[in-house]
């Protein structure tokens, strides 16, 4: 009886060890690849639109004021919404990178998912940024929004040069800065 229990215990521990190892390998794989998934710009284009230079995301505020991005310099577009917990969670990193865009002369546009999700005009997220409630349909057709927040950075040539899906971390801010540095 004791021998059987000991055997059962050893088998259980062996299986437990095996499951821990498999989970560990899967966790490391997923953790590593989630980062590349978040930065995979090809996932942002709709089928047939891959790699094509973007037109400007001309749009309107909810009150009907037209927003036309500056034709010179780079452009950053952030999909976000006031009530999205992830958009709120990365507010500090967004404010940091937003200041960086401003310093480099990039135009910044926040595109909200729907009018009810707009930020109030005095929100810190809108410091040095325009907020669009309605966006050019041609632009929407080109880029797919899967989750908020998502940040797209366009070079002055209108080519998408850096993107990140999901809340921004401090290392993403550095990565975006490096991408902008590399473009100079």
């Amino acid at each position, binding site marked *: 009886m004791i021998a059987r229990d*000991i055997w059962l215990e050893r088998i*259980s521990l062996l299986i437990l060890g095996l499951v821990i190892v498999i989970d560990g390998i899967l*966790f490391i794989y997923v953790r590593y690849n*989630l980062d590349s998934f978040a930065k995979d710009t*090809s996932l942002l284009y709709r089928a047939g639109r891959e790699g094509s230079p973007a037109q400007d995301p001309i749009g309107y505020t909810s009150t*009907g004021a037209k927003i036309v991005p500056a034709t010179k310099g780079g452009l950053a577009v952030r999909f976000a919404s006031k009530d999205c917990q992830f958009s709120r969670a990365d507010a500090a990193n967004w404010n940091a990178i937003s200041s960086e865009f401003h310093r480099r002369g990039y135009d910044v546009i926040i595109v909200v998912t729907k009018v009810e999700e707009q930020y109030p005009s005095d929100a810190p997220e809108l410091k040095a940024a325009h907020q669009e409630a*309605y966006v050019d*349909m041609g632009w*929407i057709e080109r880029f797919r929004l899967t989750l908020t927040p998502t940040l797209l950075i366009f070079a002055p040539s209108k080519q998408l040069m850096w993107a990140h899906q999901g809340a921004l971390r401090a290392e993403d801010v550095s990565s975006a800065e490096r991408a902008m540095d590399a473009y100079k």
Partner: protein
Amino acid sequence: MISIKSAVVNSWLLIGILTYCGWRLYEDFRVLRSQPARLQAIAAKDQDTVFQAEAGVDAWGHIVSPLPKDRATRTVVFMVHGATASDDLEFWNKVDEHLAISDRIRLVGYCDGDKCSNTVRLNNDAARYPIIAYGEISGAQALINADSAGRAVVRSDQYNNPKYVTWRDASATPAKIASELHQ
């Protein structure tokens, strides 16, 4: 003896929890392991997007808002392609002719880009209904996904989820679509 038994029970409890976690991780692994798998997962997520309300700005810069509940019971939302703008607009003009006023069905088109917007702008009478050229991201994306399957979205405050009519199909005629909308 008791400690061995409890160790075995605890081990299997942990195995159960870790197997569940492992399964969730495996599902993520399946999505992340290749580019086609990633695109497939995103395309599947696209189909979850639900059209909620027609809202936007038309080609002339005027805001188009959802009608109040007492004015329209249903709204049919469809995409107008630049390449076939005149035909698309005409198709829906004919659908509009077939719809009885008492049906209180509102038609709203969305342009797919500049070419369509220019067609609408150049011909004031091209459409008997509003055409949105600048849309809300969430609604527009749901419509783009529906249109890729040849469908228009039928939205109503009485529906939990939108319904669809397939109109980009050789067998679809304005009369047939109007008749489907009557139902």
